[in-house]
């Protein structure tokens, strides 16, 4: 498989975010939750990106913030695939009334604004890392289901599926052995794209004040608090903002490079 330059750039960005998340305690120059009296300082040699309103080192918080974003993004996308793929497979393969009902439900969910839905549910269950994973996974599954259904419909028409039916294979066996391997690649690509949109949505929730509770470093919340001091130290918003944009771009490039 030849890799496109887009896929390589995407992989590099994702790798960067993963490295920051895994090695955060080792590479971050300061404790991300420790405040000091040197608050709202501009970039200096000691604090490369300056400090926030509580005197915490912004660079260290950006590095540590990768953890929450990646866990929420990957966790939500995994949940979306775990719900969406079986629904799509069954709807596309069985067709008929099952398909009709599934498509109605999927289309309804897709039409609803994901962010607004996520806002309402997050208010009800309260923002915490596990809750955000579940809420975003629940909001994102219909897109995966629609894609898997479309792919299954196409694969179902192939002669080898007909042969498997003629051989007396059970529905589960056919889906697992003949349909799934042929669509797994597309689902993997959709997984990466879902990660990118889950990160955008969770960052937007944080920006609106429904992020992981402090003091855990969280990119969206950091952009939010930096927004009030935009004229003093733009890095306070721009640094976590660029981290979000770069990570989202990375996953999107990987996902969209698969045809």
């Amino acid at each position: 498989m030849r890799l496109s330059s887009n896929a390589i750039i995407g992989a590099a960005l994702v790798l960067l975010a993963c490295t920051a998340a895994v090695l955060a305690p080792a590479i971050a120059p300061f404790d991300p939750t420790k405040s000091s009296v040197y608050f709202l300082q501009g970039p200096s040699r000691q604090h490369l990106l300056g400090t926030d309103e509580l005197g915490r080192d912004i660079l260290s918080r950006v590095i540590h913030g990768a953890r929450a974003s990646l866990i929420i993004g990957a966790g939500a996308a995994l949940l979306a695939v775990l719900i969406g793929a079986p629904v799509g497979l069954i709807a596309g393969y069985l067709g008929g009334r099952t398909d009709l009902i599934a498509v109605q439900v999927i289309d309804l969910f897709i039409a609803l604004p994901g962010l607004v839905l996520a806002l309402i549910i997050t208010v009800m269950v309260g923002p915490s890392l596990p809750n955000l994973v579940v809420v975003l996974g629940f909001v994102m599954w219909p897109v995966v289901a629609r894609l898997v259904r479309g792919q299954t419909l196409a694969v179902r028409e192939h002669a080898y599926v007909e042969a498997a039916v003629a051989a007396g294979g059970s529905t589960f066996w056919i889906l697992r052995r003949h349909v799934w391997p042929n669509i797994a690649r597309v689902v993997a690509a959709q997984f990466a794209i879902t990660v990118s949109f889950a990160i955008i949505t969770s960052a937007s929730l944080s920006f609106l004040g429904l992020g992981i509770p402090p003091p855990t470093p969280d990119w969206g919340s950091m952009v939010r608090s930096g927004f009030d001091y935009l004229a003093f130290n733009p890095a306070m918003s721009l640094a976590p903002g660029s981290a979000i944009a770069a990570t989202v771009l990375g996953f999107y490039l990987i996902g969209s490079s698969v045809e």
Partner: protein
Amino acid sequence: MLTHIARRLLLAIPTLLALTALLFFSITKILGTPASMMLGEDASPKAIAELNARYGFDRPAYVQYFDWLTRAMTGDFGRSYTSQDPVGAAIAGALPVTVELALWAIFLAVLAATALNSLPNAPPALRRLVVFANLVGITTPNFILGICLILLFSVHLGWLPTTGWVPWSEGIVAHLRHIIMPVLTLSAYYFGAFSLVYRVEFSDVYRRLYIRTARAKGLSPASVAFKHALPNAILPVITFAGLSMGHLTGGAVVTETVFSMPGIGRLFVSAIAGRDFPVMLAVGMVVVVAVVAMNLVADILYTIVNPQIRLE
């Protein structure tokens, strides 16, 4: 075709009922009655019961739902818990702001996506720039884009006001100066998404015989691209734009918060912060109705334009 449209209309009714019921029960059930919140943590059970009786929270949930629904249909959404103002009036004041923002954003996105991707004889560098801009539009979260625009045009260049809102009546120029950055922010994603759809359709249309005929007749490349290819390739973008209206409310929530615009989105965010159920319910209902209506319109438009469905 008429039966198809009628069927879609009939399907929209149970959809709306189901969605509003879901909204109502989830918001009221899971969050509980607002009595404890309004009276504080250590309110006496008697005071809570009195308040519940006054607001009708002691009745069965389905009775409350139908009561709320019948009132809502006449425009009576109750009063806000925090400001005590009628919710209907607050919605009526905020809705035009959001609708204007949304229409401008979609219009700009469709215009930019179709025009920039139809340019005849565009140099490869420009084409690559457009593709790159699309990518940035799709992947950059709304609020980050908005903050970058504020930093550039307000803080550094000082050309535009940072935030706020001036209605049309107080001056068209001031109005436009306040709305331009929010519109750019909101339209960026759709510019990217519409471009992806449009490029595929445009290159497909461009290979058709009537395009070859138009070129053979000696028409200018611009005339072929904009008069012959663009109108034939724009249909999927229009359909997509109609279906994007629901998604767009999410973007409007964030954009209005960044730019402090008095629209539906910010009303919703402040209602969430204050656990103001009547406002949350009303905004949720407005969004749901708008989404179902826009999908219906997109579907009917598609039926009218697509002869395959029309002939059935």
